[in-house]
């Protein structure tokens, strides 16, 4: 077992190393071949290889000296307009020396930029196209303003197919000399839903226990956000104890730092499994979907999810009638 973070250790280094997203990789390779890259948007769910693809592209483009030709900025941490005006602009307008006349700016989690910052960015993109190409990575391209979208080539990343996901994890387990059972892989997929970064982190954390990685181990380490907790919370709400359910929710979010998006994903699958009249399931799915969307938009996790809990209290009450 190696003692660094596997998610980083096994990150593909070149476009050839990327196992999936065939069509995207082929197009990127053609950019490398023609030594020209347009502004791009890489959109898709987390853990599907957007940042990796962007890094591989620059490495293939510039070779060993790629570090001098690209810059990575993370919009979640530096999302304000000042960053665009200062850092981004300074980088973008400096001329590149070397064979390729432009540099590459990777803007990660770009959907978290404020709309003001995006407006400013739009001008920078236009003005310095000669010297700088932008790759914007985002979970939702819809949150990137229209004028930027129209200037970019869109790439849509999707979750790895199940076989690829499994193959990838098994291969990694083999290299790290970790025993990973079939049920273990299954459990990881269940918990991480195809997000490869999370899957790898889950595998490493499970392996750190020093036991064979089976479903039990996986669920024990992801237990805090695991189905068990969410199940319990749903049950508490359905018996009519709203305050109890809200307390459990609050603990999950505040004490254990579980992301609201994880909770809602769990709730979504639990609702279809729970003992609720079928007609209610689809009504609740509507509420879940609406709240999921609101969370994406940046609404308050506890407030939104507790509105859902109140609906469950209502469902439980109706069932008793």
């Amino acid at each position, binding site marked *: 077992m190696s003692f660094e973070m596997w998610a980083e250790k096994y990150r593909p280094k070149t476009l050839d190393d990327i196992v999936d997203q065939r069509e995207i990789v082929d197009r990127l390779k053609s950019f490398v071949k023609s030594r020209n890259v347009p502004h791009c948007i890489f959109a898709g769910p987390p853990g599907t290889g957007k940042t990796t693809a962007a890094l591989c592209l620059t490495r293939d483009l510039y070779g060993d000296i790629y570090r001098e030709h690209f810059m990575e900025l*993370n919009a979640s941490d530096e999302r304000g307009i000042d960053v665009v005006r200062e850092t981004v602009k300074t980088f973008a307008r400096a001329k590149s020396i070397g064979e390729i006349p432009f540099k590459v700016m990777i803007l990660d989690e770009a959907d978290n930029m404020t709309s003001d910052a995006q407006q400013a960015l739009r001008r920078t993109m236009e003005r310095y196209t000669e010297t700088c190409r932008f790759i914007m990575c985002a979970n939702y391209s819809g949150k990137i303003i229209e004028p930027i979208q129209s200037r970019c080539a869109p790439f849509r990343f999707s979750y790895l197919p199940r076989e690829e996901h499994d193959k990838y994890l098994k291969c990694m387990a083999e290299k790290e000399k970790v025993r990973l059972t079939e049920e273990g892989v299954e459990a990881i997929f269940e918990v991480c839903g195809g997000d490869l970064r999370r899957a790898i982190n889950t595998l*490493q954390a499970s392996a750190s226990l020093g036991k064979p990685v089976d479903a039990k181990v996986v669920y024990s380490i992801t237990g805090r956000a695991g189905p068990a907790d969410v199940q319990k919370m749903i049950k508490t709400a359905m018996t009519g104890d709203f305050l109890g359910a809200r307390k459990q929710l609050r603990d999950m979010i505040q004490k254990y730092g579980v992301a609201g998006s994880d909770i809602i994903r769990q709730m979504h699958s639990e609702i279809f499994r729970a003992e609720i009249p079928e007609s209610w399931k689809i009504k609740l799915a509507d509420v879940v979907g609406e709240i999921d969307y609101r969370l994406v938009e940046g609404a308050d996790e506890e407030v939104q999810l507790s509105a859902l809990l109140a609906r469950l209290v209502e469902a439980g009450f109706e069932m008793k009638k």
Partner: protein
Amino acid sequence: MYAAWTVKYKPKSITDIVGNRESIEKLVGWVKSWDDGAPKKRAVFLYGPPGVGKTATVEALAHDLRMEFVEKNASDYRTEEAIKRFAGLASRYGSLFGGKRLVLLDELDGLTGTSDKGGVKAITEVAKAAECPVVLIADSAYDQKFSNLRLYCLLIEFKKPLASEVMKHLNRVCSGEGIQADENALKFIAQRSEGDVRSAVNDFQALAQGKKRLTYEDVSWLGYRDRQDSIFNVLRMIIYGKTCVSAKRAVDMADVDIDMLFEWIYENVPEHFADPHDLARAMDALSIADVYRGRIRSSQDWSFTRYVIDFMTAGVAMARQNTKTSGWIPFKFPGRIQALSRSRADRAMRLSIGQKIKRRNHISAFRASKEVVPYLRIIFKNNEEMAAGIARWLDLNSEMVAYLVGSEEKAESILKQLG
């Protein structure tokens, strides 16, 4: 259902009353003087600010002297005719069963000078001719409408008790409830109450109910509040609002900002909406208010605040369709804020580890703190070797290692491996 601590710990005896010793003695002397026949002034007029113990004193006194106690609220006796019925009660000293009678007419402020003029006049008649001790209570005795009545009454003023005296009463509640409270915490509540014992007890209940210990930290963040319209009144206006306009108007009276008010409402809604449909509607309204808060953040357009207010006030008030307003339910301080301030240090630590992860892992510090740190905690707790490797690779300092491991000892052993 909760019992209000203001009721549960109402003084049983006048020795339990805090403050106002002289006034109480004056009152006791006057009541006792009735044993030697009716005194010159046949009524007593107690006045003073709310919550200082005027009514409590009279009740406790009747209890101590084993008198038959008749208590009426003046606002129920608004007309001359009604008062005349009341006057019958005061026409005899001895009651049917041989005991002595004490009559209390409370909240005289409730009578208006003009339309209830007949009422005040009738009360004056009662005061003149009473055959048993009659006690009148109002916040102020020097209102124009009482000018004639005052002539026939012994005036006794009740003043605000000192903070130390309020504390004495809070201490009694503490031991009754089995709560250990820091002296600082009680002092803070007592000072904040500005001598209003009732509101101090209400505040104390809201903060301490269900707790074993109350620390200064638990209360200190409250700050001082406007005594005119306490947050409790504002909440009552919103949660029990009958019309959209009245619920919305409450916002103007709150001396907390919109976000804080939101927290107050969000915390308290569940206990005040027993009907599940009402609850779902109310929580829905709050979630929509929250959506508008998000829209303000992303657009920086503060004019959307009006919609936030619509849903968090009128939206909540209109959710009440089936739940009856019954019983007394105390308002609680927003638990989320308290918990948040406690976990603030935690979050700062997670974020600084996130910064380290960001440098090596192409992920934002914010996301790393949420998505990667939980996994690191598991690894650090279970596998020292791997933990040491990762600590070196991420360049974590000893504090960060200690946070991830969760124990000083184990952290040291990991740090030793780092050399």
